[in-house]
């Protein structure tokens, strides 16, 4: 059992949340579970309910490319239609307004796109133009097989993750 959690550093608005990605043993499918809440900083976060099942030995997280593959994934969530989309709430953050659409296919995030992206000033818009694709790619790459994380010069928007979180909540993940 492999857990992948995205934890927000508190923003000016005090958003917080946790995303858990659970790999099923067998390795090819990545299911997503949003277990966070948009509470403020403090103690509340985490304690993923699904985490309790964490007995099985860690499978090699060697998933192949992010979409489509998944030979033996069906060991989970069979009822879901294969492709679903949900939009996150609009999240206000220091530099403007951001809303994301998350596409989940066969239990995997296959795309993350901004729906609303109203930066408050030209510089912020410019930053977003760089940061949003970067964050999307990181979200996708984190699910891909042969790396566990991405190191790059940092600009990060907690609003991105908060909106991603709420989109996943709407998908019932």
């Amino acid at each position, binding site marked *: 059992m492999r857990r992948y959690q995205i934890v927000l550093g508190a923003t*000016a608005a005090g958003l917080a949340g946790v995303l858990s990605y659970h790999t099923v043993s067998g390795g090819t499918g990545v299911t997503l579970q949003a277990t966070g809440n948009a509470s403020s900083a403090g103690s509340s976060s985490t304690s993923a309910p699904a985490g309790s099942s964490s007995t099985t030995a860690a499978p*090699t*997280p060697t998933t192949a490319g992010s979409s489509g593959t998944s030979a033996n994934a069906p060991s989970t969530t069979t009822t879901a239609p294969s492709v679903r989309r949900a939009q996150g709430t609009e999240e206000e953050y220091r530099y403007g307004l951001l809303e994301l659409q998350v596409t989940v296919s066969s239990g995997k995030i296959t795309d993350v796109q901004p729906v609303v992206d109203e930066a408050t000033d030209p510089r912020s818009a410019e930053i977003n133009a760089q940061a949003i694709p970067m964050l999307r790619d990181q979200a996708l790459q984190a699910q891909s097989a042969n790396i566990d994380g991405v190191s790059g*010069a940092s600009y990060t928007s907690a609003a991105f993750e908060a909106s991603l979180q709420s989109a996943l909540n709407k998908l019932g993940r």
Partner: protein
Amino acid sequence: MGTVFSITVMGGPDLATAAACAFLHQADQDFSPWIQDSWISRIRRGEVDLAAAPAPIREVHGLCLEALRVTDGWFDPWRLPGGFDPTGLVKGWAAERAAEMLRDSGAAAAMVNGAGDIACFGRPDPERDWRVGLEDPFDPSRIAMVVEGWPAVATSGTYQRGLHLIRPASGRPAVSVRAATVVGPRLWLADALATAAAVAGVGAGMEMVEAVDGYELLVVGEDGRRSWTSGFTAEAAA
């Protein structure tokens, strides 16, 4: 810090992750210069004395002094607009501390990624080590290289926040380094070294990191050329 941390953890109690998250939130509250009543903001405004600050603030202050020395002054959190600002080190420090908390609570392995500054321990799988992809600084959607098995990986650069790195000597932004990645045993120092190398420029950065035991540098210049210190190894990404 106002940034995103991701935590990958193998084993250990769920509560440990919650505790690590709580710590990261607290670190944000304590250290963010963008939060008006953070300790750092109050120290910057001269409202409180360092001696009166809680232990983590004093610890980070001590690490900043150490980093100033190790980097020959290239990492200088005192010579920044608005006064003392440990941001160039504190994200790495916090991620490293969160990883230590997970290890101490019994996790077999974990990776804590503070927006690209990564601390890890243990192995994600008996067969292999943690693998970290390094962004191509000219095309951040691409992974240019992969490093494996380092407890700390930190990248600093000028390409995502614009020219956010300031040359201590001149007060002007550094432009000659596109991105600098430092690997080594401790993330707080790797973070400071990466920041320092990005400020120092390619040549001085190489010289600086080469002299620090256990740490290696990969630096990409604005001209696209890559340089690395003698012990740096990586594989090209597929």
